[in-house]
């Protein structure tokens, strides 16, 4: 019964995010078909890659006939941020069996990470199963993502443009961005990342995003080094990572 309760708690926390994820997934499906991918390939991207922003970038680059290495590398660089999620959430997954770790890693997203880490810092493993809460959140994001990608790919260009549904994408990222600004150094990283991204948007093959992210991170680190606070680590992430379930 505990497993079911914790799974549902995770599902409940991410459910409002579906408001942004459903139109995002529809757009990814629509864009994929528009760029010349088949609906099967659109779904393939969603199941194999399962990371919206990088899927969209890969689709756009494929549509522009960018070199395949640029397509793959761009998608990977856009997803580099997940390495931090992996590092941050790893202590809570330490006691999971190896196959469970692999499945948990496959399902790791901005949203599943953000809600899980917040929950794990507020509860003990006895109060909240790490495994079941995480899978409740992650699966609730995965299933609709697959469905709406296919729907978008099949419905195609008939999604009403006047609704500007694509604007829900930057809004979702903004909602995830704001809580990460926890001090001057992260604010500088965001300002430089955002500023460089605007200027470097003229770079081919989404290299502007890579450049912006790297310069943003470097600026944040640089500021911390200057004020003598580097490296700042989150001590609370290293508490008992055990899973009672």
């Amino acid at each position, binding site marked *: 019964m505990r497993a079911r309760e914790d799974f549902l708690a995770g599902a409940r926390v991410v459910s409002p995010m579906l*408001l942004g994820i459903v139109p995002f997934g529809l757009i990814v499906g629509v864009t994929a078909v528009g*760029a*010349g*991918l088949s609906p099967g*390939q659109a779904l*393939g*991207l969603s199941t194999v890659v399962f990371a919206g*922003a*990088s899927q969209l970038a*890969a689709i756009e680059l*494929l*549509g*522009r006939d960018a070199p*395949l290495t640029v*397509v*793959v590398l761009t*998608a*990977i660089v*856009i*997803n580099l941020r997940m*390495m*931090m999620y*992996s*590092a941050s959430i*790893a*202590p809570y*997954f330490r006691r999971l069996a190896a196959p469970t*770790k692999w499945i948990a*890693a*496959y399902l790791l997203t901005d949203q599943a990470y953000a809600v899980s880490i917040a929950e794990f810092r507020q509860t003990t493993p006895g109060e909240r199963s790490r495994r079941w809460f995480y899978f409740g959140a992650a699966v609730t994001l995965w299933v609709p993502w697959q469905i709406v990608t296919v729907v978008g790919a099949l419905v195609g260009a008939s999604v009403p443009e006047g609704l*500007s549904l694509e*604007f*829900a*994408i*930057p*809004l979702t*990222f*903004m*909602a*995830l*961005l*704001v*809580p990460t600004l926890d001090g001057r150094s992260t604010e500088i*990283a*965001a*300002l430089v*990342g*955002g500023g460089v*991204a*605007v200027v470097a*948007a*003229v770079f081919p093959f989404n290299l502007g995003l890579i450049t*912006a*992210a790297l310069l*943003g991170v470097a*600026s*944040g*680190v640089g500021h911390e080094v200057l004020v003598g606070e580097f*490296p700042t680590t*989150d001590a609370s992430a290293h508490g008992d990572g055990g899973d009672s379930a």
Partner: protein
Amino acid sequence: MTTSYGTGAIWLAIVGAGVGTFAIRLSFILLLGRLDEAPPTVEGILRFVPAAVLAALVAPSLVALSAEPSLGLSYAPEKVGAGAIAAVVAWRTENVLATIGVGMAALWTLQVVV
């Protein structure tokens, strides 16, 4: 806009991006299962990735650099307005539903008004 790549090439890109992304996701979950602690320097650097990347994803959807008639920023006022309102909501509530809901409602309202 339509790709001239064949089926095999597209699947190659999908699998390549997928394997790379999975390796990133699995990296520290696997590694930290063996180590006691993440190297502080690595963690100290990675800490900035979400702020930098998310800001880099948001900003170009609100403003763009333009060269004509002179170097400057071009933007859709209703998107910048809605983005600003959403940012305030995100900051005050840290609630994704509220941020998206208010942001979209603001955009639709401003599209009618502006």
